[in-house]
């Protein structure tokens, strides 16, 4: 009987360790890391594997440290109440140690088997997420996810550097695309969870500015995003396949945001924007790869 209980505890610990890394969020980060590797060149399967593992460990480490820092507010939000620390299943110190160990492992792995620039960029994303977003901006300004969104924009730089050993203009545009995609994506969720954020004292845009202004800003950021996705075509980085894809995907996102601004109630439309924006970013990067390889 005690062996069964011990087995269950081990399975529970393994599930909690995976939960600390936020695997669902990381899956999109890995798409925006892998695609630039193939846009920039033709990496080996080994390099791809190492970058994927290193990227997962670095992002997972950042997410675990984020849960350590946010332990006081996670308990006040329905969305985060079941995480390992507020759930009482892991100690804060264990979570911090786990997160730092993942980051150290990822730094070594990427530097040893890919290159130092790739490792430094991945570590830069870790620091940005932990210190600039979580520690500094998240609880002080409604612009938190705008500036903090830069953390999620590091993966394209990581992927590009892994293949080329450098960062150039197209890599910067990929960074900017993810950077400007973050506000319409995250504010759709923040609109839906604004009561939770308000209760936890996190000044997300809908809590501070109200729903109307947040939706207006989502609209303008979507316009900005679509315009930016077109510019790499102008200097020859991508061709017609990508251009048509970018305009079609961006048009659908813009339509969703406009529909949300007009809808009463708007919750169903906001969910659509949130979920579609995830698909949008993944398909946009896939379209870039197809355009380069055909």
């Amino acid at each position, binding site marked *: 009987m005690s062996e069964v209980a011990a087995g269950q505890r081990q399975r529970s610990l393994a599930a909690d360790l995976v939960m600390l890394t936020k695997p669902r969020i990381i899956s999109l980060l890995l798409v925006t890391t892998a695609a630039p590797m193939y846009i*920039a060149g033709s990496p080996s399967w080994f390099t791809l594997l190492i970058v994927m593992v290193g990227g997962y460990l670095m992002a997972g480490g950042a997410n675990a440290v984020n849960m350590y820092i946010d332990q006081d507010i996670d308990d006040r939000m329905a969305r985060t109440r079941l995480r390992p620390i507020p759930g009482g299943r892991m100690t804060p110190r264990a979570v911090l140690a786990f997160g730092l160990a993942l980051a150290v492992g990822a730094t070594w792995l990427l530097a040893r088997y890919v290159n130092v620039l790739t490792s430094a960029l991945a570590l830069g994303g870790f620091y940005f997420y932990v210190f600039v977003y979580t520690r500094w*901006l998240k609880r*002080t*300004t*409604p*612009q938190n996810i*705008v*500036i903090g969104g830069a953390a999620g924009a590091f993966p394209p730089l990581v992927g590009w550097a892994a293949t*080329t050993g450098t960062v*150039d*203009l*197209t890599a*910067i*545009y990929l960074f*900017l695309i993810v*950077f400007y995609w973050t506000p319409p994506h995250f504010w759709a969720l923040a609109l839906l969870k604004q009561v939770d954020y308000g209760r936890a004292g996190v*000044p997300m*845009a809908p809590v*501070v*500015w109200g729903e109307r*202004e947040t939706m*207006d*800003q989502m609209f*303008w*950021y979507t*316009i*900005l995003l*679509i*315009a*930016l996705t*077109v*510019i*790499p*075509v*102008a*200097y*020859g*980085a*991508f061709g017609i396949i990508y*251009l048509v894809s970018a305009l079609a995907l961006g048009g659908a996102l813009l339509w969703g945001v406009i529909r949300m601004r007009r809808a009463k109630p708007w919750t169903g439309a906001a969910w659509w924007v949130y979920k579609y924006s995830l698909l949008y970013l993944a398909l946009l990067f896939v379209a870039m790869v197809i355009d380069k390889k055909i």
Partner: protein
Amino acid sequence: MSNLFLPAAAVALAAQLYVLWAVLAGRAPASSPGRRARFAEITWVVLPTLVLIAVLVLTWNRLGDPMAINPVSGVPT
């Protein structure tokens, strides 16, 4: 397709300037009162605006110098 650059850059800049205007006009205020919070709020919007302008200028310069970009890969040579 280089003629796409100017309209796309103009749209991107206009949208970024709206975001900046919303903060300057108080439509998107800081989370707490006070001059310091307002200054920080403006800074967080000015910074991306400056980065965006810098990248657009860099792109414009590269477009004016065909030798600077490999037309196939888009990678500066």
